[in-house]
Each structure stands twice: as C-alpha cells, then as structure tokens.
C-alpha cells in the first residue's frame, strides 16, 4: 500500500490485478476488463452490474438530476476503462491498483470537478433529487432541520479535497477505511485522520447554525 503525500506515486498506474478485500472479485474484474477491451460487450454489462450502485452513490451528491447522475456514472466507467487500456498497453506500472479502486477514485474526482462549479452546488442538487428532502416542511422545526442539513451538505462540498474524498467514500459509498485507503493510495490511519478532520469541520458548521437558530 502506498503512503500518502506523494501524488505521483499515489496516482500510480492502473494494473488490473488481484488484490484488496476480495482477490476473487478483483481477478474477475481483471478478466472482464480484458474481455471488454477485446470487444466482449457482455463483460461491460457485468462490470456495470457489480459496481454501478456504488459509483452512483458517490456521484449523486454532485448531480442536479437523475440523468446527470447516470451520465457521471457512465463517465466514471469509461474513464476507468480508458485508463485500463493505457495501463495494459504499457504492461502495467510499479504500482498495482485494482480496477474497482481505480473506478472509485475516478468517480470521487469527477465529483470534485462538479463541486468546483459553485453555481451548481449552490442549487443544493441532492434536494432536487431526493423527494423526501424537497417536500416542504410543515413545521418550524422541520424548516430549521432542513436548513441545518443544507448547510452541512454544503460544507461537505467545501471541505479540502482529501477530507471530502474520504468522507464521501465512507458515508456515500460505505467503504471501510481499509478500502478507502486502498482507493486513494494512502494509509488506513491517514484515512481515519482525514475523516476526523472532516467530521470536526461539519460539527463546527452545525454548531454555528445552532447558535443562530437555537
């Protein structure tokens, strides 16, 4: 496992090889990627079936509509496959990254790019998708709670990149810290500390909101 802080090493080259939590899963991903690159369209279907829900969970925070979520999922898969093709053509690199880890890293970075679009995230896209959140609260308590939720989710998008990546890989994609560390090329302890800083920042935002509207 690579140590954090060295971006070129952390980025590495994709080499679709067994590794991570389940060796069998990753070996199958490897075979599927190779088959797809050789023209087997069914292999892509299997890769989508395995990973699309987790990728969707990661990108939907940044999407303004269900269609945009789907487009971000598609983009993440295609970029991961393009990276796989480049890596396989080069014969792999010093570092080996399982396909799933590479895919999640791309997905979370697509989110980062979307987060840069300030106008987009100020529209609080999640509320536009989530039917329960968009329903008008009937009581003042509900209004206050909805406002706090909006502020905290907005604060998530304003977190430093690494903190946001770790936080969303945990609470959106529900990865373990070990899987997060593998996906981002950092240590598990480092991932925990980044999560801690992110959570503290959100707690501060929430505390400030409570001071304004006790």
């Amino acid at each position: 496992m690579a140590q954090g802080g060295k971006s070129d090493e952390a980025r590495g080259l994709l080499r679709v090889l067994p590794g991570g939590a389940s060796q069998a899963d990753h070996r199958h991903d490897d075979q599927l990627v190779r088959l797809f690159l050789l023209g087997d369209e069914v292999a892509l279907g299997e890769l989508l079936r395995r990973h699309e829900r987790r990728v969707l969970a990661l990108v939907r925070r940044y999407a303004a509509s269900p269609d945009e979520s789907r487009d971000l999922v598609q983009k993440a898969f295609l970029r991961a496959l393009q990276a796989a093709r480049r890596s396989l053509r080069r014969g792999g690199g010093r570092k080996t990254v399982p396909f799933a880890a590479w895919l999640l890293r791309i997905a979370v970075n697509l989110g980062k790019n979307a987060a840069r679009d300030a106008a987009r995230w100020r529209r609080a896209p999640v509320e536009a998708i989530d039917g329960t959140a968009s329903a008008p609260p009937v009581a003042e308590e509900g209004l206050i709670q909805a406002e706090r939720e909006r502020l905290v989710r907005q604060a998530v998008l304003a977190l430093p990149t690494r903190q946001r990546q770790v936080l969303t890989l945990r609470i959106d994609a529900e990865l373990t810290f070990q899987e997060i560390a593998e996906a981002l090329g950092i240590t598990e302890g480092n991932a925990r500390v980044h999560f801690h800083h992110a959570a503290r920042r959100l707690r501060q935002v929430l505390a400030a909101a409570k001071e304004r509207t006790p």
Partner: protein
Amino acid sequence: MTGACRDFEVLLSVRAAGALEPGEPERIESHLARCQACSAEAQQLAEAVGLARLAPPAEAELRAMDGLQARALASWSRSQRSRGLRRRLAVGLAVAAAAAAMVLAPGVLRHEPRLTGGTPVAAAWQEPDVDEIWAASASVDPASEDETSLNESTLYAVIEDVDGF
C-alpha cells in the same frame, strides 16, 4: 477534556462514521461513560455526520440508470472512432511534415541568414564575389587561425596586394 480524551479524538469521529473495529467500541464506550465532554462531542459529531448522509437513491434515480450499458457502449464506440481518426490524422500530418522538411531543408540551409550581434542580416545579404575571396585568401597569412581578427590596416594591405597581383 483531559489528555486521555485526546487519545479518543479520532475514534469519536470513526464512531460517528459507524466504522469502529473490533475492540474499539468497548474502549470508547467505557471512556464516554466517564467523560461528559467527550460524550457531548460524540453526540455532536454523530449528528453532523448524520446530516451529511444522503437518503437512499430515489426511484427516479434508479430508473435513470436503466439502459446505462447501451449508452456506455455507444459512447465507447464513438470515442474509439474519434481516437482512430485522430491517430490517422496525426500519422498523416507527421508524414506530410517529414516530406515538407525533406523538400525545403536544402534551400533553407543554403540561405540561412547569419546573425551579427543578434540582428538578422538576411535583407543585406549579397552574393559573394568569388574572385575577391580567392584573392584575399591567397594574401592572408595561412598561419592566422582567425580570419575575423584582421584589422583595418591588414585589410588594406590585402587589397593592395590584390591590386598588385
């Protein structure tokens, strides 16, 4: 908050994430039972992380994912075609550039302008008088290593030699 509490700082956040590892829940719950400050902190962290969590995907989001495979395949095919075109274009341009270089290189090298003190002198360049060069070279001391070191009097002497040749 005491020094011991600092040991639990990260664990409180990990607890809020619901990602404690075996052995950790016992340690932290034991501390929280004794420490009011950490207990309040744990509650606030859990609330903040809870607010950051999204609701599960709505039906509309899941429906939008239908047909993803067909869309992805179509997009992949388009990117492959444009990649092939780009590659052929790049090869064509490279061949054309190489051919152009082969045709133009001799002419460019023959008429390459000389620089004097950093200023191009191409506009003032004239065809050299071969006879004059021949005469001058015949008069210059062959031991002289640097023809450009000729001073003005030497040059006049060369000219006089030529006239008297």
